[in-house]
């Protein structure tokens, strides 16, 4: 059995998202599809899974030409796709999520479905409580549920679209084990990613896509430089770690108790200096977001005090925090950070401190043009926020940060960005640091934490588990701490 993709073309208006893509993947293979954001990986995968119809070209599985007009056709042909954000139904139970959309009789036999769920998940080594709501599962568990379901429905080809976004380090290890087992069992596994190290660690072979075309195919291992060059067309050199001398205290948190939902951080003492970069590590939902939101003034501490640059802000509102020079960039760029439907120019007007009643749109467009150049945003002053790619949304958010910021709070500043955009984001952040801004950022990316932090605060189970300076910690120890263990 082999999956052959033959000369696939797909256009969206003037954009050629797939421009004659041809490659073949053999059975039992773990095949990486590598490319930067917007390279055309997702479009191709959506064609394979029946979401889009190709303008021309053929998909051939096991010698048979497939007619993929809808996801139903793809499922029938044995092609299953795991979307970046698992397509599950949050308020439904695990069992209902498993059974929804499956073929069978009119009456839904939940007992039989449960037995099937247990059988297939048991074979994969996953554990589920069928009555639990999917809302209460982690992203990793939702993925496991989706994998279980696709295999139960008889998938022979499994497509994973950026599956490591939003899952913890330990879940990633488990996911990779599962992928290896599936491939070893004779399946075709396509692993779509823009993360080089993951493709290197996992895949047997790789196809690199750039601007809708296949630019490189190889058996692994391949030198990283080669892959980077193929992905971006130029070799990107990782920056040397730079430091600047720290100044006096900028953020001061004393004996603070913060609580939000099930997270409760008690008796937190923390001082962050001018020009210091502090990384917040930990599994998703361990308390990092709570600390950031408290510093931003979005939740108030139950007790204790919080001040920025000597200004008391314990009971202050979000507006007062803004006025004191605190700026927060949440993880949900489009949901919490930007306004859908309004343009880059309009965003910059919103973010400016100009209070005039009438907006000078000529000047606003001109200013938007300048910011677009300065932050290398791929878009026009009139482009709406949701038309921008993730990297360009983050660039726009950076452009919206006021010039004078004392404390910058960031949640997953480079999540989902390609290497180039991530490097750009950090170049900008470090410039601000050099001018005295204190930076606190939460991240799930160990390399990012180790590369940029002066100190790392590790959260575990809703409280501060350990605080280490960058000099005294390495990736292995950080991994242990995130898992709640202290290395012996």
């Amino acid at each position: 059995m082999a999956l052959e993709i033959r000369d696939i073309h797909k256009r969206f208006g003037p954009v050629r998202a797939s421009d004659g893509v041809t490659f073949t993947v053999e059975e039992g293979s773990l095949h990486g599809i590598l490319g930067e954001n917007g390279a055309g990986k997702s479009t191709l995968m959506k064609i394979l899974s029946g979401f889009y119809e190709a303008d021309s070209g053929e998909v051939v599985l096991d010698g048979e030409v497939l007619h993929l007009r809808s996801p139903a056709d793809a499922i029938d042909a044995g092609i299953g796709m795991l979307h970046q954000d698992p397509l599950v139904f949050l308020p439904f139970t695990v069992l209902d999520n498993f059974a929804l959309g499956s073929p069978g009789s009119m009456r839904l036999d939940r007992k039989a479905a449960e037995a099937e769920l247990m059988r297939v998940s048991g074979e994969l080594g996953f554990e589920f409580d069928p009555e639990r709501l999917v809302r209460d599962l982690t992203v990793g568990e939702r993925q496991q549920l989706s994998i279980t379901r696709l295999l139960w429905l008889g998938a022979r080809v499994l497509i994973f679209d950026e599956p490591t976004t939003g899952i913890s380090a330990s879940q990633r290890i488990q996911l990779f084990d599962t992928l290896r087992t599936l491939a070893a069992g004779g399946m075709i596994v396509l692993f779509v990613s823009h993360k080089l190290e993951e493709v290197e660690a996992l895949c047997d072979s790789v196809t690199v896509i750039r601007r809708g075309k296949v630019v490189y195919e190889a058996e692994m291992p391949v030198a990283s430089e080669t892959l980077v060059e193929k992905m971006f067309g130029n070799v990107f050199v990782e920056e040397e770690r730079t430091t600047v001398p720290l100044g006096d205290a900028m953020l001061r948190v004393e004996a603070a108790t913060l609580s939000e939902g099930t997270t409760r951080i008690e008796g937190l003492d923390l001082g962050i200096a001018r020009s210091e970069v502090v990384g917040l590590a930990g599994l998703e939902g361990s308390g990092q977001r709570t600390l950031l939101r408290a510093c931003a003034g979005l939740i108030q501490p139950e007790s204790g005090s919080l001040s920025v640059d000597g200004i008391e802000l314990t009971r202050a509102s979000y507006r007062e925090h803004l006025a004191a020079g605190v700026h927060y960039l949440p993880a949900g760029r489009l949901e919490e950070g930007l306004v859908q439907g309004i343009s880059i120019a309009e965003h910059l007007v919103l973010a400016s401190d100009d209070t005039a009643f009438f907006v000078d749109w000529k000047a606003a467009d001109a200013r938007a043009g300048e910011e677009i150049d300065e932050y290398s945003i791929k878009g026009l002053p009139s482009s709406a926020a949701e038309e921008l790619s993730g990297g360009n949304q983050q660039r726009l958010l950076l452009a919206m940060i006021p010039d004078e910021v004392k404390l910058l709070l960031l949640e997953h500043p480079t999540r989902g960005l390609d290497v180039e955009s991530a490097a750009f984001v950090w170049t900008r952040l470090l410039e601000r640091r050099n001018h005295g801004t204190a930076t606190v950022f939460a991240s799930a990316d160990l390399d990012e934490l180790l590369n940029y932090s002066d100190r790392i605060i590790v959260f575990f189970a809703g409280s501060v588990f350990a605080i280490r300076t960058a000099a005294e910690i390495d990736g292995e120890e950080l991994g242990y701490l995130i898992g709640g263990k202290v290395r012996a």
Partner: protein
Amino acid sequence: MEATFNSIIAAAAPLIIATMGETITEKSGVINLSLEGSLRLSAMTAFAIAFWVGNALVGFAAAAAVGAAIAAIIAFSSIRLKLNQIAVGFVLTLLAIELASFLGDSFVGERGPRVPPLPIPILSDIPFVGKVFFDHDLVVYFSYVAIFATWWYFYRTRPGLNLQGIGERPEAAFARGIPVNMLRFWYTVLGGAMVGIAGAAYSLDVKLGWRETLTLNLGWIALAIVIFGGWHPLRVAFGAYLFGALQVLAFQLQDVFPGVAQVLPIAPFPLMILALVFVYSDWFRRIGDRFPKMRNLLGSEAPAAMGTVFERE
């Protein structure tokens, strides 16, 4: 006492049929806001057709067709033309109301056919229960069937689970091979047909005859009851009976408190608002968290994709 309960069950029957229809429609992700207009136009049509033909059943069929046609316009304009469901539903409400007044003018005060009473043998002889539940006509029995069938379909069948899926997260349902937009269209039409039958039940059964105020405000109340019922057929039915009880009570109390006679008929409306405040309170929500088995019944969450348009990107 028996008679009071009997009349509550009868008074609520059309409301039950309409709210079950709307629950099905909204559960699939479409809001049919036109209920106030659909009910009125279908009530008028049912009476007019039944009056001409001299047969109530034909009136019911015509009313179902009217309700289904209005629903089909909403579904088509939302699914194919990507128009806003609220706007289209509201405009259709106004159109249907005016159309009913205009076309129905000559039927005001006429006497038409009615649905004959049909006590169920044996069952209706049971003391109290028999009189309250089984001494009715086909419309009331149909309302029982509507409640049970809707519940059974939602929670015990495969297509019912898929129906919940398309209203909750259509892109996920689509990824599983479910034809989202086609199903939405037909569930909207089905719901609309049930609203039409409810309209006919008013003019041919519960209130008899046609006048402009026959179903006044009941469409809006039906929409509120679906929300009160948290899109769960049994709770929606409870809401409809509660409203029916309030109406009957208000009617009977008019004789007891003649001084406030004008106020009592409108009392059910503000009480409905209070009921909505209650089911959306944190206290009520916490009960739902404590009994996982009752989650569906006690939850008050709207289908997440309700009122939105699904496109394949």
